[in-house]
């Protein structure tokens, strides 16, 4: 059986996003217009890939028709990836000035108040 070579099935949107993400020649210098924050773009695309619900809402039918995306194995992978990404979001946010962050950040727990009467 030639399950793989006979006719490779069209690549899914998730595959495409993963493939174009943080790959390709990077140009650095003043000829480049930094209109796109590459790291932010990367992060956004990764979160997008990780979110099956978001993907479904995009209404791209060859995405929703792909059985691969409905498998449980995929979901487990996505969950693991989601967790990894949350950690990376936190790390990135930590590098921004605090006033640039509109999402609540985890702050160290306030010292427990003890009444010593």
């Amino acid at each position: 059986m030639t399950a793989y070579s006979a006719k490779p099935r069209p690549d899914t949107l998730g595959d495409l996003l993963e493939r174009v993400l943080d790959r390709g020649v990077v140009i650095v210098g003043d000829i480049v217009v930094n209109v796109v924050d590459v790291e932010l773009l990367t992060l956004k695309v990764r979160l997008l890939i990780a979110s099956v619900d978001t993907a479904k809402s995009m209404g791209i039918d060859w995405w929703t028709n792909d059985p691969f995306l409905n498998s449980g194995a995929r979901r487990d992978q996505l969950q693991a990836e989601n967790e990894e990404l949350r950690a990376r979001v936190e790390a990135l946010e930590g590098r921004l000035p605090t006033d640039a962050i509109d999402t609540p950040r985890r702050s160290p727990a306030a010292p427990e108040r003890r009444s010593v009467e």
Partner: protein
Amino acid sequence: MTQQRGLYLYAVVGFDTSASPALAGDILGVDDTAVATIEQDGLGAVVSEVDLEQLAAVVDGAEPDLLTGLAQRHHAVVLAAMDAVDRVLPLRLGTVLTGPDAARQFLDRRAGELSDGLREVDACREWGITIGQTDDAIPTAAAAEGGAGSDVGVGTAYLRRRREQIDEAQRRRAAQADVAAAVADAVRATAVRAAPGPRSAGGVLLDESYLVRRGSEDRFLTVVDDCGSQLRERGLRLRLTGPWPPYSFVPSTLRVVT
């Protein structure tokens, strides 16, 4: 006042002939503008004009379909370039230059690296392979032996059975890792180069990208087929994607300062 328009850069292409071959007819760029090729000494920059504010909104905004639209357009133009010429280096998603002069400067200043990079991917396409568990994992021997009655388990017997199950699962994982490594070796032998895939960091037994010469694709796919059959017997699944432009096999960072 800030600059309103820039030049989105999709790919750098190499020509043998003096004239650049036309990209497939009606292909439109990220802003629905025409895609053009800026030439410089046998190298070409595949570009289209882009509205900077609009592009920034794609990335900053919350609309996921704008972002996927950008990725799809980027990819479509790179594919069109792949159809037109044998040597294509895809650029990073979201690369915008100040204008045509900047594109010419880039081709001129980095001609050496670009030509080397183009030679390496000449007449090659990228394929991706991931190996992971199938959804219906093969039941372990220990689990199969444990009858319904004994499952309720009394103390030691239960713990011993549990231990056996864990050992069995560990043995199986080790065997699967060996098989995945053997597959990677077999596939690499038919490829020009291999690179880590997008998911290589976790969750899968193997995720690799392969740069395969177009003339070797039949051999590559035959090997992949054979490996896929072996893997299925062991409760593993091989997934192939491609052919892709050589996204994973390009020079990484090129600096150009005027």
